[in-house]
C-alpha cells in the first residue's frame, strides 16, 4: 500500500520513539530514586535530578513538534487518536520524571536519618511493581496490544494497597523522632510511586483509545466502558 503521507507518518513515528525513550528512562529513574531513598545514595539522587532535566528538554521538544504537526498536518482518524495519545503521554511522562525527582529530593532531606527496614523493603517492592508497570506499558505500546494495556490496573492494585498501608507502617515506626521523620518522608515517597503507577494506567487508557476508538477509564479489572473492536 502506498503511503501518500509518509513524511507526516515518519514524523509521528519519530515523536513516539522519542517518548518511548523517555518512558524507558523514567523506568530507570524510578529504580535509581528508590535506591537513593532506601539506601541513602545521594549520588544516585543527584543523577535522577540531572536525568529529569533531559526529560524536561524532551517534553519541550515534543510539545513543539506536536504543535507543528497538529497545525500543519490535519491528522485524522487513527492519526488523530495517536496525536491525542502522544500529547497525553508527553505530559504524563514529564510528571513521572517529576515524581522521581520528588523521591530524589526526599533522599537528600533524610540524609543521615535512621531508616525503618520494613518500610524500605516495601518501598523497594512498590518500586519494582511500578517499574514492571512501566515496562508493560512500553511493551503494550510497541506491540499495539490493548489487552496488555488492560493488565495495568490489576498491576496497579498492589501498589495502591502498599501505599494505603504505609500509614500503618509509619505509626509502627515508633516514637524516635529521627526514625519518625524518615518514615514520614517515606510516606511521601510511597505517594510518589503510587502516582507513577496511576500515570502508567493513564497511558494504557490512551493506548486503548488509539486502538479501539473508545475513550474510557479502565476499571480495576482493566475494562473500559463501551469498547469496540475497531482497528487502526
Amino acid at each position: 500500500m502506498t503511503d501518500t503521507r509518509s513524511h507526516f507518518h515518519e514524523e509521528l513515528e519519530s515523536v513516539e520513539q522519542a517518548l518511548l525513550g523517555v518512558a524507558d528512562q523514567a523506568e530507570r529513574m524510578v529504580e535509581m530514586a528508590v535506591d537513593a531513598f532506601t539506601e541513602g545514595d545521594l549520588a544516585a539522587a543527584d543523577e535522577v535530578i540531572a536525568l529529569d532535566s533531559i526529560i524536561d528538554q524532551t517534553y519541550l521538544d515534543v510539545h513543539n513538534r506536536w504543535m507543528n504537526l497538529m497545525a500543519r498536518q490535519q491528522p485524522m482518524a487513527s492519526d488523530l487518536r495517536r496525536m491525542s495519545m502522544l500529547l497525553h503521554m508527553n505530559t504524563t511522562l514529564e510528571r513521572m520524571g517529576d515524581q522521581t525527582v520528588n523521591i530524589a529530593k526526599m533522599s537528600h532531606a533524610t540524609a543521615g536519618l535512621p531508616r525503618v527496614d520494613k518500610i524500605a523493603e516495601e518501598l523497594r517492592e512498590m518500586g519494582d511493581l511500578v517499574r514492571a508497570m512501566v515496562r508493560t506499558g512500553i511493551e503494550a505500546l510497541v506491540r499495539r496490544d490493548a489487552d496488555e494495556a488492560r493488565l495495568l490496573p490489576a498491576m496497579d492494585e498492589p501498589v495502591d494497597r502498599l501505599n494505603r498501608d504505609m500509614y500503618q507502617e509509619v505509626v509502627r515506626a515508633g516514637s524516635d523522632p529521627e526514625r519518625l521523620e524518615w518514615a514520614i518522608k517515606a510516606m511521601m515517597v510511597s505517594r510518589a510511586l503510587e502516582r507513577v503507577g496511576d500515570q502508567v494506567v493513564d497511558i494504557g487508557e490512551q493506548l486503548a483509545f488509539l486502538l479501539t476508538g473508545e475513550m474510557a477509564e479502565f476499571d480495576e479489572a482493566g475494562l473500559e466502558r463501551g469498547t469496540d473492536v475497531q482497528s487502526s
Partner: protein
Amino acid sequence: MRSETTDQTERRMNESPEQKVTIATEGFIPAEPTAEAVMRIKGMDVYYGDFRAVKEVSIDFARNEITALIGPSGCGKSTVLRSLNRMNDLIPTARVEGSVFFHDRDIYEAGVDPVEVRRRVGMVFQKPNPFPKSIYENVAWGARINGFKGKRGELDDLVEHALTQAALWDEVKDKLSDSGYSLSGGQQQRLCIARAVAPSPEVLLMDEPCSALDPIATLRIEELMMTLKQDYTIIIVTHNMQQAGRVSDRTAFFSVDVDDRGQRTGKLVEFDATDKIFTSPGQKETEDYITGRFG
C-alpha cells in the same frame, strides 16, 4: 510555456558565487537566517499599466526549501510567482520595478535572456498541460529544446531520470509511447513535473499545482514535492492553506490594501518559517487569515 521556451538560445546567465544572505526584515517578522538564497526579491513592485498590482515585496528563497505563497484572491501571490521567471513579460502592460535576483544576477537586467531564465527557473501550472505527444516525447522535449545533443541512449536515460524524479517511472515505463493524454489527472501533473525538471532547472515554480486534482493525487504531488526539494528549490502558490502547512518550510502571507479610490494592491504581510506562521504568526492580519477571521 511552449512559445517562450521554444525560442531557447545557448546564452547562459553569468553565474556568480552564491551569497550567504539573510531574510529581509522590512515590514514583517523575519525568519531565522537561512542557508544561501537561490532567489531574492528586493523591493519589488509589479504594475499592469498604471495599476500597481503588488507593492514593496522583499523575500529570500532558500536553497532546497519549499516556500509557499498564500493569501486571499487578488493579493498578488501569482503575480509575484510569475515575476520570478519573467512570465509577466508575456503580458504587454506588465512592468516590474525593484529587483529579482537569481543568485546575484538581477533577472530584469538588460541583456538577460528571459528564455534562459525560464530554463533555470522552471514552472508547473495549475492544470496539467501535457503536449499531445507520447509520454516519452513530453519529457524529451524539455531536453531537446534546450539543445540536448546526446545520443538516443543518453536521452533515454534523461527521460527515465526525470520520470523517476517525478515518481512516475514505475507507472509508465512500459507505455512510454502512449499519449500523455492517456494518463490520469494526477499522472499528467507528474508528467508535467518530469517535463519541468528535464532541463535541470535550479528552481521550480508551482502555480496551484494540485487545484485540479483529487485529494489522493494531491497528497502524492505533495509527497513528491518533499522529495524534489532535495534537488530543487521550490516556490508554490496555493489557495489551500492546509497544503502550504503540509509541504512548505517557509510561508509568505500576502494580503490586499485598498486605497480611497478602491484600488487594490497586493502586499507581503509576513514571511517566516511555516511552523511559526501556522502556530504563532507575528502579525494580526496573518493570524486572522490563518484562523479564518477575514473578509
